[in-house]
């Protein structure tokens, strides 16, 4: 049958594309396509960059993208490098994450050939109805749990960011004070007074 063979080839082509693609997470919203291209271009040729839009989650979660490389080996190299060393994109110090892409990350995927779906309406009198309603409720509960966990994570991230910010500011201030003292002559003057040497690094 013609349609099945084209479906299969389509699917095979799609699978091959999946192997070449890297899924990147923890991206800042300011990251643009060209940034991703140049960044990952260090590992090989980038064929395509597609950001995954976030329609359902809370507004603050970091962005993610699918990057298609030239061949699976490059994709593997990207993932390996990013996992071993913290890779920064468009800002520091939060590193990005990278995984191999999976099929469900693509929304324009072709149908897997050979799969058949069946569906039916279940009546109230059917003994399964109870179970089905329970399942529905459970799934809703899971979704709420997910959301809650996500919000907790965001709160923790915020806390860490704040903490790092403060430490950084404190360090910066300390270093700038030292710098100033050395540059405007206070240190050398004091050194003369105490008969000590200023280490001019």
């Amino acid at each position: 049958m013609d349609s099945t063979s084209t479906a299969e080839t389509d699917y095979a082509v799609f699978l091959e594309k999946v192997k070449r693609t890297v899924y990147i997470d923890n991206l800042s919203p300011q990251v643009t396509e060209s940034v991703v291209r140049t960044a990952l271009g260090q590992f090989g040729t980038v064929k395509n960059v597609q950001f995954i839009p976030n329609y359902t989650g809370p507004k603050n979660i970091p962005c993610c993208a699918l990057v298609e490389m030239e061949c699976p080996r490059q994709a593997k190299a990207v993932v390996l490098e990013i996992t071993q060393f913290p890779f920064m994109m468009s800002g520091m110090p939060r590193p990005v994450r990278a995984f191999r892409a999976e099929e469900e990350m693509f929304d324009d995927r072709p149908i897997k050939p050979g799969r058949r779906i069946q569906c039916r309406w279940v009546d109230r009198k059917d003994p399964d109805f109870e179970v089905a309603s329970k399942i529905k409720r459970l799934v809703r509960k899971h979704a709420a749990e997910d959301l809650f966990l996500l919000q907790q994570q965001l709160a923790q991230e915020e806390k860490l960011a704040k903490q790092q910010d403060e430490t950084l500011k404190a360090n910066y201030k300390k270093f700038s004070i030292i710098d100033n003292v050395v540059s405007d002559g206070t240190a050398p003057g004091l050194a003369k007074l105490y008969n000590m040497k200023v280490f001019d690094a």
Partner: protein
Amino acid sequence: MVEAKTVENIEFKWGKQRGVGGKKKDVKFYESFSYDGVEYALYDSVYMYKEGETEPYIGKLIKIWENADMTKKVKVLWFFCPREISYYLGDEKPPENELFLASGEGVGSTNVNPLEAIAGKCNVVCSSKDSRNPQSSDEELQEADFVFYRTFDVGNCRILDKIDDQIAGIEVKFLLNRVGNQKFQWTESYLGEKVLIEEKVKGLQKVCHDSNGSNSKSVAQTTPASEDKSKPNITKDPHENYSGLSKRPKPDEGLTRLANGKFPEASLRQPSREGFKTNCQIQEVTRRPEADRSKWFKGLPWEERMQTAHEQGTLVLLQNLDPSYTSAEVEDIIWHAFKQSCTVKMIQRTALASPHSGQAFVIFQKREVAEMAVAKLDEGCLMLSNGRPLFGSIAAPCFPGKQSTFFGHLVITKLRIHRQRVMKEAVSTSHCSQPNTLEYEMAMDWCLLQERSDIALRKLRQQQRQEMRKLWATSVCVGIVSLPTSIVIASSLIQRDAQLHVHKHNRRNVYAESRSSTD
């Protein structure tokens, strides 16, 4: 290093002696012993605890002896767990109870330890399909604490599939599964095993002669080595941090995805199961007749359509789909269920999304239709072939606008004079952070946080999966939905370790609990 503490009240008894050795022939080699009520034999796998560490090491006893000064020693050939060699595994995520036998020449494959460091016996089964390995049954594999079929060469630092003929001077056939019963009966009154024992004794004596030369050397090292395990910098500092990182949350999701993917096929085998008569009719979901017509006009890009749909009230969020469905399949489902055509977009799965259920946006043609569909899904139940009831709601998507808050990118506020000029030119290039910078330290903090969240997410998913399974088990259509342990579908998606996962899924939960209780 665990000191050879005086064995105060821990019961110990030597078993069968193998021979003598050493320079003055005063070292006695044994084949078995009983320690603290447990019988151990040569080539048994044991747990060894290092002081201060929560997880025990696992090794195989390859030599047991007693010195002239009455100290008892064992030489242990180590097993590596995936965590310890995660760098060399790279992308691969083997199951938690897979081990790798140490092989090759180099530091770190074996160690001599006092016998008292043994903490317990361990059941490690070799699942290799090697011809020299007596194959174990499925039950044995399931009951085993650990399995191994590969080795890790400490000399080349590589994972090998092929097992050499000799490892650490011992012929490999002794290291693989034992012929016959796993339990080594060392009382000769057990007639059934007697023949086996004699065979082994002969084999062992041969080995004993072979390795006699090396024996004297190892015995001479009576100083307790300062390291329990001296590894060649296999894990350097940055790698040590990342060896935790490389455990991604994916394995569980991959597993359930596969498990779910099997369900539709399973239902095909039992179409007659729907024997109990109700009003429900099963409909086969085939392509809609007008599927091709939609290709005529491209239409606006999805986001605009979604926005207009949202304003018009025709946008519905459909939930509890199988995550592997595609948009086209969902459109077909809607067609069959409601006799309505619509356009569907499956929501792409991100690392945070649940692997059990997928979601999709559906744009109906009219608002009333959308509302009717939602209402109908609410009251009745549209069951898909793997026991999933769909439900939906009028969707309220949030469109990604200008997102200004992103945690983690820090900026130093420079002096105001410089700001205008500098800000325009400063472009932070993408780079890998180097270990000796402040930035690296902070990046490590973020990595740690990420790991924590990953673990929390994984736990949640596990719990959710258990809850789902419980509910599914109570479903009447149990024939369709029960764990497909007998159904093995070879598809390109299934890797070997995923298969083991399916077999051992229940085991793993129990095992995880028992592991945490020993900590």
